[in-house]
């Protein structure tokens, strides 16, 4: 038979949701479509910041609505909220930590504002963030001790 056990958890009755009434899903869909139209019209107005706001703002709103109304995240157990939030926070951390290196660097060359002229290439000890040392034109081997 199906997975319905006589105990509280089974196929048709989710203990997590209780018996929350279903919302009007078609209405939600309608709002989502309207938002989609807004985000498509946005770029046509030609103003960059409006385009960005409609595009990404709408995306955020749409995602929120899908998550809340279709995935029923608003009545889901708190632990689920936590694990999703942590995952998202990790992605923010990933961006925040990598961007100074990867985004700024543009992938070309190793010239960074700070540090490059400090002589990793000489063999003298020195303090980072200090003054310029006279450049020694040594063949650079940055993994030589």
């Amino acid at each position, binding site marked *: 038979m*199906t997975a319905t056990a006589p105990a509280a958890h089974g196929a048709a009755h989710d203990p997590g949701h209780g018996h929350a009434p279903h919302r009007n899903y078609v209405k939600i869909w309608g709002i989502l479509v309207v938002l*989609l139209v807004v985000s498509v019209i946005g770029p046509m107005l030609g103003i960059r910041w409006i385009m960005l706001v409609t*595009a990404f703002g709408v995306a955020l709103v749409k995602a929120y609505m899908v998550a809340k109304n*279709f995935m029923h995240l608003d009545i889901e157990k708190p632990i689920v909220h936590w694990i999703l939030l942590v995952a998202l926070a990790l992605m923010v951390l990933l961006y925040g930590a990598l961007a100074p290196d990867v985004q700024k660097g543009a992938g070309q060359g190793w010239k960074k504002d700070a540090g490059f002229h400090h002589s990793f290439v000489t063999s003298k000890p020195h303090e980072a963030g200090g003054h310029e040392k006279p450049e020694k034109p040594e063949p650079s081997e940055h993994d030589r001790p």
Partner: protein
Amino acid sequence: MSVKTIATQRASMNIPTGRLAVWWVLVSEIVIFGGVLVSYLMHRLGHPEWGEQAAYTNLWAGAFNTLVLLTSSLAAVLAHQAAEKGDGPKAARLLYLTILGGLIFLIVKSFEWTHEIQEGFTLQAGGFWSYYYTAAGLHAFHVIAGMGVIAWVASSAKKNQELHRVENVGIYWHFVDIVWIFLFPLLYIAK
């Protein structure tokens, strides 16, 4: 052959096991897609000239596909509603509509990509395009996998079996929809 263990039917956290598992699947997917999208974002912001390449993506195809996925998500959640009422056959029909949505999405995408490749915008054509095909391709892969799983769930549901799976597979599908909701502006609108 069903392998129903006692373990599967317990609920120490008061969430049905299957649904808890799907949320964990989503956590792992958030970090996978997050990895691709964070990498893309950093490069896109660091290379303003990519905006010129992005101008060649087909906004209407993207918008239409967004509509298609939103509609298929609607079908999925209506299937969940039917399943909760115990109407397996109806849930299965709605799930088949969801799959149809996925199929239309993929068909539109194949036309879109064929056209772009013929124009010379290949995977190797430049940084933007590499990310474009990789991110959307990864997404499409998840659409295909999702369609397969939905079909499997529907085949049980129409016999009024394992109806709890309808909700769980729907949650996965809504996530796939949400990823596209973000891909759309990232790849199509921001130019």
